[in-house]
């Protein structure tokens, strides 16, 4: 039991208790002299009353000293600290905010449930101990919206709210929650308490800082309860998990490396580290671990040819299971399929545009594979083309071609397919029936002398040029164009490349959901030397990525507590998909349109993860437990691997001395896991104001009575 003072500086005024004594002494010095003939009567009077009067005077002096002391004590707002919860004593209603740390580290087992369970038991007891006038708010350090209003709940509602608080594998944000509680604790309540239950694990609390709080309210009692510190920090965990290359390439092997950390004080030998791919155990490595030591492990895994790769690293069960598994998942990269249409197939192979285009698209690193699969067809074969099997089409010098194919191509583009339309002697948009292109082509003209190209101002960052690096325009300035088909942008088309005089040579535009590019020259050596220039390969790969989408492998992983993003073509806006969490709980989320950005939406299917923008997007914000989150669609199978943040493995508590530097008004008490009455660990602050007022009133009455008696 001890005292706290809200305005402790006023206690300096305690020196004023000597004021009555000083006045008494001064009065004695200021005694006046009188002569009195009836002295004898005075003498007899004095003899009679001396003892009683002296006693009364001493009592009066004592009462006045007490009165001054109590007034100063009262002004400094004394609060009596006692154990036994925060419930009020009935004079003033109390508003208590119970902040429960539900971050991953709180899942640490204590023998009486997890630290989180112990916290909830204590909060439950606090709620049961509330008076009818008291109010309680429940806040959790992980999983709460940043600025959720504090609901002041009655007993039954508070119990219900407490049940809603769940253990997560996420990182906590104690500073944010405590700050929010401090700033929003009910100003109507007579007393406000904020009780924070936590393990004070370094992961969350090392960065704790609320010193710069806008308004520190001295009427709010902030206390911290360290939950089950006696349970220790014995734990095995993964650290620094690295996978290379990641995401893996289809059919290639990749490496998973990690460090296994032993936070216990005992040496551990032959600790099995298991690797699961899918649900199958692939490999087990045994490691010896020194106390507070780490040991590296490494696995090599073959990625499948297609689909999704998912698996986990696993350590034996211990007190904190959230740090014993590491989940991983990735979508294996899909190869783009391009249809190259040769409009003039009678020419020799090396004179054909398709020769240069196919070679450019098929370029692959040594020992690797090209990300694009190409098929070359002649214009007369177009009637039987299954358009939907391709991601984009490259049409070269297409003159006459079947009308049915024209309809098919337009439909393909409007549904999201890409089209690269290269002009030539035969090509004419009117003849080809392509009046829907973003540019109109005129009669070809010869340029004498030949000209170079430049990137249209403002279009340097277009994805088509993304593989050219910084200052990609220098590659085009070295080109020579001897003949072109003059283009006029139409229907929203805009120039990406142009002659030095500004005449457009490459125009891009949207048709339906698809992207179309019109090239005002040829892709062979007849009109330009582009096809034999080094820029041709990265340029065509840029065109390919832009029109077909980057179907690279995608890492599908997130930290628990973070929202992850699922992207899809824009046509899926409004569509709902089901997500199944690790506890088999299912939740639907809906695609919404996302503003276009630097990266295009996927042409087909879904893309998981957080990167990218554009197209349709759906956010899943409920991934608070580690494990796999599956996207449930009839034709697709996607996984997102969610892990406890790496920082949550740092479960040793912060040094209280460091903590005190961060929080001046620190008050930390321990709550043992096996404490049958957890309220003993929570301080009750009794406002002594009313009691002191009563005492002061009593003193004044007694003083008046005694003074009157004199």
């Amino acid at each position: 039991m001890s005292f706290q003072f809200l305005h402790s500086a006023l206690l300096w005024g305690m020196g004023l208790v000597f004021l009555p004594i000083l006045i008494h002494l001064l009065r004695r010095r200021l005694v006046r002299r009188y002569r009195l003939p009836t002295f004898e009567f005075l003498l007899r009077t004095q003899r009679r009353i001396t003892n009683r009067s002296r006693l009364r005077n001493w009592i009066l002096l004592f009462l006045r000293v007490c009165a001054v002391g109590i007034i100063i004590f009262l002004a400094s707002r004394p609060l009596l600290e006692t154990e036994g919860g925060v419930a009020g004593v009935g004079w003033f209603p109390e508003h208590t905010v119970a902040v429960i740390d539900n971050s991953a580290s709180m899942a640490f087992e204590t023998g009486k449930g997890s630290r989180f369970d112990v916290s909830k038991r204590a909060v439950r007891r606090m709620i049961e101990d509330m008076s009818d006038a008291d109010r309680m708010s429940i806040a959790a350090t992980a999983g709460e919206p940043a600025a959720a209003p504090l609901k002041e709940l009655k007993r039954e509602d508070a119990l219900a709210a407490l049940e809603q608080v769940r253990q997560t594998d996420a990182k906590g944000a104690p500073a944010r929650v405590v700050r929010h509680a401090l700033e929003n604790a009910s100003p109507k309540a007579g007393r406000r308490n904020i009780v924070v239950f936590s393990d004070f694990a370094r992961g969350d609390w090392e960065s704790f800082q609320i010193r710069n709080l806008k308004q520190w309210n001295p009427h709010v009692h902030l206390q911290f309860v360290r939950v089950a510190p006696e349970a220790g920090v014995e734990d095995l965990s993964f650290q620094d998990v690295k996978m290379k290359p990641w995401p893996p390439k289809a059919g290639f092997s990749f490496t998973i490396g990690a460090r296994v950390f032993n936070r216990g004080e005992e040496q551990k030998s032959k600790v099995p580290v298991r690797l699961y791919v899918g649900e199958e155990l692939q490999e087990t490595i045994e490691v010896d671990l020194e106390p507070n030591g780490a040991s590296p492990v490494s696995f090599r895994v073959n990625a499948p040819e297609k689909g999704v790769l998912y698996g986990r690293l696993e350590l034996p069960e211990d007190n904190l299971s959230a740090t014993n598994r590491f989940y991983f998942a990735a979508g294996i990269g899909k190869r783009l399929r391009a249809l190259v249409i040769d409009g003039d197939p009678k020419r020799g192979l090396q004179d054909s545009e398709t020769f240069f285009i196919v070679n450019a698209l098929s370029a692959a690193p040594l020992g690797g594979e090209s990300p694009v699969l190409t098929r070359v067809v002649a214009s007369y074969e177009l009637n039987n083309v299954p358009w939907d099997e391709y991601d984009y089409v490259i049409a070269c010098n297409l003159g006459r071609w079947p009308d049915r194919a024209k309809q098919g191509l337009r439909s393909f583009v409007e549904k999201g397919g890409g089209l690269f339309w290269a002009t030539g002697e035969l090509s004419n948009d009117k003849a080809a029936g392509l009046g829907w292109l973003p540019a109109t082509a005129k009669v070809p003209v010869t340029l004498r002398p030949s000209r170079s190209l430049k990137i249209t101002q403002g279009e340097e960052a277009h994805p088509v040029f993304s593989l050219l690096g910084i200052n990609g325009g220098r590659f085009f300035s070295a080109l020579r164009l001897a003949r072109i088909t003059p283009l006029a942008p139409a229907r929203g088309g805009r120039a990406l490349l142009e002659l030095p005089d500004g005449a457009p040579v490459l125009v891009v535009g949207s048709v339906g959901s698809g992207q179309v590019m019109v090239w005002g020259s040829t892709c062979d050596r007849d009109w330009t030397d582009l096809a034999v220039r080094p820029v041709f390969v990265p340029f065509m790969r840029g065109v390919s990525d832009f029109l077909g989408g980057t179907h690279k492998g995608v890492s599908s992983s997130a930290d628990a507590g973070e929202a992850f993003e699922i992207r899809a073509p824009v046509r899926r806006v409004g569509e709902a998909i089901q997500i199944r969490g690790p506890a088999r709980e299912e939740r639907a989320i809906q695609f919404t349109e996302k503003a276009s950005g630097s990266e295009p939406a996927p042409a087909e299917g879904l893309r998981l993860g957080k990167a990218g923008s554009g197209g349709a997007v759906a956010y899943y914000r409920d991934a608070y437990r580690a494990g796999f989150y599956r996207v449930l669609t009839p034709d697709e199978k996607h996984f997102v691997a969610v892990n406890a943040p790496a920082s949550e493995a740092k479960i040793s508590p912060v040094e209280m001395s460091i903590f005190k530097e961060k929080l001046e008004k620190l008050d930390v008490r321990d709550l043992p896991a096996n404490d049958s009455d957890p309220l003993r660990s929570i301080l009750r602050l009794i406002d002594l104001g009313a009691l002191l007022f009563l005492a002061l009133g009593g003193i004044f009455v007694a003083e008046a009575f005694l003074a009157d008696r004199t």
Partner: protein
Amino acid sequence: MNTDQYFDPLVISRLSNLQLRARHVVEGLMSGVHRSRSRGFSVDFEEHRAYSPGDELRHIDWKAYGKFDRYLVKQYEDETNLYAHLVVDASASMDFGDGPLSKWAYAATLSSAMSHLLLGQSDSVGLVISHETEDVQVPPKSIRKHLLTLLAGLQAATPGGGTGIARSMLDLAERLKRRGLVVIVSDLLDDPEAVEKALKLLCLKGSDVIVFHILDSVELEFPFEGLARMDDVEIDRNITVECEVVKRPYLGLLEEFLEQTRERCADLGVDYHLVSTAEPLDRGLIRFLAWRSRSRV
């Protein structure tokens, strides 16, 4: 002049001469009253005085008229109706006063005025100025010139020393050979038993005793406040008192003392009058005259 001013201690205090004070008081008392004196016939010529309206014509000395050409009335040393002794306390306690007149000045003025009145009625007036161990005595005479002797005695006296009023009364009682009037003017701050004993003896001697108990308003009201050091006026001693604390019991004790004194006087048939120095002087004199008229009857 407003008649009240004749008796106002403040006005009287401005008159330095005791004779003037006495005359002032008596004139004030008699103003508006028929001035004929109740002087008796006498055989021994004493003096002439100027005729004043109201004097009987038969008392005019026609020979003197022929000689001095103005009306003179013969005065004779009349037979004394009454032997009066004024016992005035001149202890140090009487030299105290918060108002314009100290107790001593008040007592002397009152005694002078009474002497004036008594002598004016041809009564013999003697004076005892009481000190701690011995008294100043002026034997009683009834001639008017005796007033000057009495006043001179009062004026010459200086209050001081302890109280000897009981002793003075006892001495007087022993000396008294005739019945008469004894007027005690004192604060009676003496041993009450001794005072009672002396009064009893005076009464036994057949004297009528009037006690003018003179106290200052400060003594009667104790108007002090705060912490005060009180000095005894007669003995070198003092005490420090919380005035608010002692006031009530002090006044209680004083009241008890006054009540006892009053009762003892009543038991002895002594005419007792408590007089505050803040009171106008006529009150005491009226009481005295009232007694005087009763005694004539």
